[in-house]
């Protein structure tokens, strides 16, 4: 079975044609050119070295595992931090090189949902919330609810993506036309 990264699922949810262009036609996106992506990676590496033993007591963290590469059938990814909470549940925590703009973007949520699915299977425990840390807003910590429906949606997306790739299916584009404006594939995509 094919195995996806959370970023691939996020791309699929943004527009299903991403999956087609990138993984069926194999036209790469040139992500490395974005300066902010590079800076984010630099900071991420620094984070791994600093404050290794620090536990976020405020949100009831008992234990944590850093930089966990987890995988299940059809999904794999690296979680910045897996937190073990006081109530026995687990939660993913992800660092974002971004400003807090009074709302959690859908892509960030989807990423946490993917991690939640991964943690549930690998750590054999329940995950019903996740955390985001906004590095450029004084490390603001935001809690995100993870419901059963959200986790199911990830599973459904995985299925749909496998369909596109294995059957060479050309999917319908997203109905949000605004997303086409700065899409990397806008020049080759049929409207």
């Amino acid at each position, binding site marked *: 079975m094919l195995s996806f990264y959370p970023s691939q699922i996020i791309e699929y949810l943004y527009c299903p044609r991403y999956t087609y262009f990138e993984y069926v036609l194999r036209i790469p996106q040139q992500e490395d050119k*974005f*300066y*902010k992506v590079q*800076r984010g990676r630099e900071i991420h590496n620094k984070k791994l070295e600093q404050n290794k033993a620090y536990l976020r007591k405020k949100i009831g963290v008992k234990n944590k595992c850093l930089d966990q590469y987890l995988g299940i059938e059809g999904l794999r990814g690296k979680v910045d931090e897996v937190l073990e909470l006081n109530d026995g549940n687990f939660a993913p925590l992800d660092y974002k090189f971004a400003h807090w703009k009074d709302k959690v973007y859908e892509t960030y949520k989807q990423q946490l949902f993917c991690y939640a699915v991964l943690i549930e299977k690998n750590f054999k425990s329940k995950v019903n919330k996740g955390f985001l840390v906004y590095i450029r807003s004084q490390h603001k910590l935001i809690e995100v609810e993870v419901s059963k429906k959200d986790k199911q949606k990830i599973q459904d997306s995985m299925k749909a993506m496998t369909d596109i790739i294995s059957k060479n299916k050309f999917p319908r584009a997203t109905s949000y036309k605004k997303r086409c404006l700065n899409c990397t594939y806008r020049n080759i995509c049929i409207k």
Partner: protein
Amino acid sequence: MIIWVLYDIKNDGARNFVSKACLKSGLYRVQYSCFLGTMNANEKDTLELQIEKVINEDTDKVYIFRMNKEQLKECSMLGQAFDDKLVTDEIKSLFF
């Protein structure tokens, strides 16, 4: 949005870096240490981060101003000033 970048940077390397970063992000050089052009919010943020990383906060000065088209039209431009249509991307290409 229209962005002005003005700077006074002591270190030659840092100054060169900033001028190249401005040109690369699509701004026009209107004077030696003054750039002007159209950018979106993400491009502006990227440029700010790039500049922030190389300058010396104790000695250098960088100003990044935001302006809209109407405000630019109200500016007085004397002498050998730039073409305001060029910096607002109204002219798509130049033929010599």
